């Protein structure tokens, strides 16, 4: 089990000194070798991208950098000196700031307090609130969000706003290396552009950036060099980010070649019976007067910016929120408003947006998470049949290429993308007739994404209706049969997927963006 030969590509001429060098870093968790000999060299002023499948060890690697985990063996060299950061403070003091994959904010502290958590400007132990607010406003301004009030509790911010605060925290340090673990996963399209602007500013000052993302387009756009991880090992280092062929990257990540394409739509329009009919659905302050239909076997996609109210719409259809006006009918029968149980009985299923808080029992084994909505089916007289349950979950795990495959492991130990697969997999069991998917591929790697698309298409072919929300416009356009565009709580356009292109959608969507101070 020795590491294979590394592919050494010539370093970019523009990049500076190597600030960070990892040699043969190993990190094991009980039962898992998360890092199994990682090599990484990051230069000042470059954007170094980390690529790898879900569970490849990217997040673990950056946690080793940030002093969260101690490596079992291997060397970490920081600015030419050997350095093993004993705790997060040490790493921060050395000049490494990190934006973690999972939002790491304190809900009941203000924006400013979160940004400066752990290194608050203070005098005799008292927080210098004015000073802190001023600096926070500065940083937020730099991030293009002067409208976020530093005094607002983070609890009251939407997900995208929270991501901005996470970035503000990273910028509040005098960092020489900023690590970003899938920062774009919860950002809308225009926000990503904003992020890239900031990254360019940073690198121009000679600050190094480690950037993790599953979206290859982003890597192409912002990255300088790429290191690829597979199963905890570096399989390729320092590839040029812009001109390494996608096929190569994917092959090194997955060990096989995957065509990153959407499955074929069936030749003829799905002519299934109408399954879902939503009429004039309204929740004040969230969305208003939404009407839509989904037919059996049809995939309907909803595009829109983060904050346009799509999640709330799905949750209301699903009965998790109570509508203020309007109705939801399933197969012609009205659903009891505000009752998830009724919706599930009527054949609805939903994969919610925030997997950790809304979907997973982190301490429970994978199979119990997969069967959370359906375990009743494997029960007789209320007594569960764990064997059957596990077999079914195993089948789903196999079809989604869950990694690791042992369905008895607690979900907590899965990587972010694999957790997402568990959430989606839950509704592939049982006889769901209409599936509501909210950002189903968030954080899912390229290979699994293609598989997920296949699975969704296959479900539709079986006559299941799908209502899909995604912030990735190509995904909506590529996967859906029919597309709705939402802006600020209203449906502004509805069209067959073939009749609309990405630019049209973006134009519609951008007309009033959440985070932009002034309208476009």
């Amino acid at each position, binding site marked *: *089990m020795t*590491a*294979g*030969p*590394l*592919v050494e590509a010539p370093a970019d001429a523009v990049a500076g000194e190597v600030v960070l060098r990892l040699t043969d870093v190993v990190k*094991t968790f*009980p*039962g*898992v*070798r998360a890092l*199994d000999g990682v090599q990484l060299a990051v230069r000042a002023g470059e954007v170094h991208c980390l690529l790898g499948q879900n569970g490849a*060890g990217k997040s673990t690697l950056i946690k080793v950098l940030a002093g969260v985990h101690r490596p079992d063996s291997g060397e970490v060299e920081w600015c030419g000196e050997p350095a093993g950061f004993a705790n997060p403070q040490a790493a921060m003091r050395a000049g490494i700031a990190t934006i973690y994959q999972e939002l790491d904010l304190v809900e009941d502290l203000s924006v400013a307090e979160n940004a400066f958590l752990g290194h608050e400007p203070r005098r005799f132990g008292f927080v210098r609130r004015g000073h802190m607010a001023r600096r926070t406003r500065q940083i937020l301004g730099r991030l293009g969000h002067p409208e976020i009030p530093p005094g607002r509790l983070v609890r009251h911010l939407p997900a995208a706003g929270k991501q901005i605060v996470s970035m503000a925290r990273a910028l509040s340090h005098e960092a020489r290396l900023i690590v970003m673990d899938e920062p774009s996963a919860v950002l809308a399209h225009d926000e990503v552009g904003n992020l890239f602007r900031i990254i360019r500013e940073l690198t121009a000052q000679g600050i190094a950036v480690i950037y993790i993302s599953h979206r290859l387009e982003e890597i192409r756009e912002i990255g300088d060099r790429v290191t690829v991880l*597979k*199963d*905890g*090992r570096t*399989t*390729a280092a320092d590839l040029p980010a812009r001109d390494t062929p996608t096929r190569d990257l994917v*092959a*090194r990540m*997955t*060990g*096989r070649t995957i065509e990153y394409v959407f499955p074929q739509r069936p030749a003829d329009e799905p002519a299934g019976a109408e399954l879902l009919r939503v009429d004039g659905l309204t929740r004040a302050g969230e969305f208003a007067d939404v009407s839509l239909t989904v037919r059996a076997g049809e995939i309907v996609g909803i595009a829109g910016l983060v904050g346009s109210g799509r999640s709330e719409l799905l949750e209301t259809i*699903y009965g*998790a929120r109570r509508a203020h006006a309007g109705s939801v009918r399933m197969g012609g029968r009205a659903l009891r408003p505000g009752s*998830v*149980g009724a*919706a*599930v*009985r009527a054949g609805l299923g*939903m994969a*919610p947006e925030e997997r950790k*808080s*809304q*979907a*997973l*029992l*982190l*301490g*429970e*084994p994978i199979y*119990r998470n997969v069967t*959370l*909505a359906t*375990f*009743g089916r494997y*029960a007789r007289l*209320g*007594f*569960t049949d*764990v064997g059957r349950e596990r077999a079914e979950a*195993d089948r789903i795990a196999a079809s989604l290429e869950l990694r*690791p*495959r*042992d*369905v*008895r*492991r607690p979900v907590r130990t899965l990587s972010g993308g694999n957790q997402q697969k568990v959430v989606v997999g*839950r509704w592939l069991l049982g006889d769901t007739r209409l599936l509501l998917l909210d950002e189903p591929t968030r954080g899912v790697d390229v290979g699994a994404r293609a598989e997920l698309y296949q699975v969704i298409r296959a479900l539709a072919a079986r006559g299941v209706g799908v209502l899909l929300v995604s912030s990735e416009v190509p995904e909506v356009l590529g996967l859906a049969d029919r597309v709705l565009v939402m802006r600020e709580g209203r449906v502004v356009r509805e069209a067959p997927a073939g009749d609309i292109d990405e630019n049209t959608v973006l134009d519609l969507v951008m007309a009033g963006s959440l985070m932009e101070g002034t309208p476009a």
Partner: protein
Amino acid sequence: MSETTPTATHERAAGLPAEFTKPDAPRLSWWHGDGGEGARRNLGLLATLLVLVVIGILTRPDLYGDASWVWGNTLTILKLASVVGVVTVGMTFVIIGGGIDLSVGAIVALAGVWCTTVATQSYGAGGMIFSALTVGLGVGLVNGLLISYGRLVPFIATLAMMVAARGLAAEISDKQTQVSNDAFINGIASTNLLGIPLLVYILAGVVAAGWVLLNRTTFGRRTVAVGGNPEAARLAGIDVRRHTVLLYALSGLCCGIAAIMLTSQATSAQAAMANLYELDAIAAAIIGGTLLSGGRGTIVGSLLGVIIFSTITNLFAINGLSTEAQNMVKGGIIVAAVLVQQVQFGSVTQFLRRNRATTT
């Protein structure tokens, strides 16, 4: 390795330990498997129990020399554990389900007092048992409704119930100790079957039922889901509120059973009985590995927790310790018991890690 063929790499899954590619590898399965950690924890509790027994042997070799005394003493400990044990089973469900029930002691007292009023006693043992169970269930239901539909924090709702139920019990009993004159009820505590007290059978029955309910039924699965992540449970179509009501009702029912057992033991009931049982039950559940924040716990662990506590009490009694010494030592034992479990955990992991490191 990047140069090997894709298929081969995939097959061999280089970066992962072998047991992960084979889904049903027996190795380590006791460890990662279903409830493995719970089982390991319970081993730690058994070790603690053993240590307590050894202490007993060392301090009172005269008593422990007599086998029949040892057997009798074991039964005494189990009998002592029986009432709190039944309460703890209900409490374990409530805590796993994300709640807490501070009113259990008060419910036991109220149910006990209710079933020993002159009026109730006139209906005989059947009437007394029926009324104790009904009162327990009823109060539990009220708890559940307040928490589920009144949206009260469980701590506050059950604290209020604790105060109110003790008050009501005092009102009903007129603050007197009510003697039970029913031979059947009084006989429960003194009956032995095959040399084992009936109370121990009742405990065993409740524990077994609780174990099946938690581990083998959809009710138990829902409980874990509701406590582990209520939002996820709700979005998976589980009626979280109704389930919460049922959990508190279950706890109340257990208190009703415990009330009959305790009334039988004391051949009487009064408003101040079952003093601080809530603390005993919560402590036993937590010592037994139940997470106070919900979503995890085992019935066997709770049972062991209760038995550890009653063994400690027994140890004090046979050594004639004074109350204050008892308390000081008890605090120390509790801390030690929990620490022992952790030390064990650490060393086992380390052992495994070292083991694996050499085999890999």
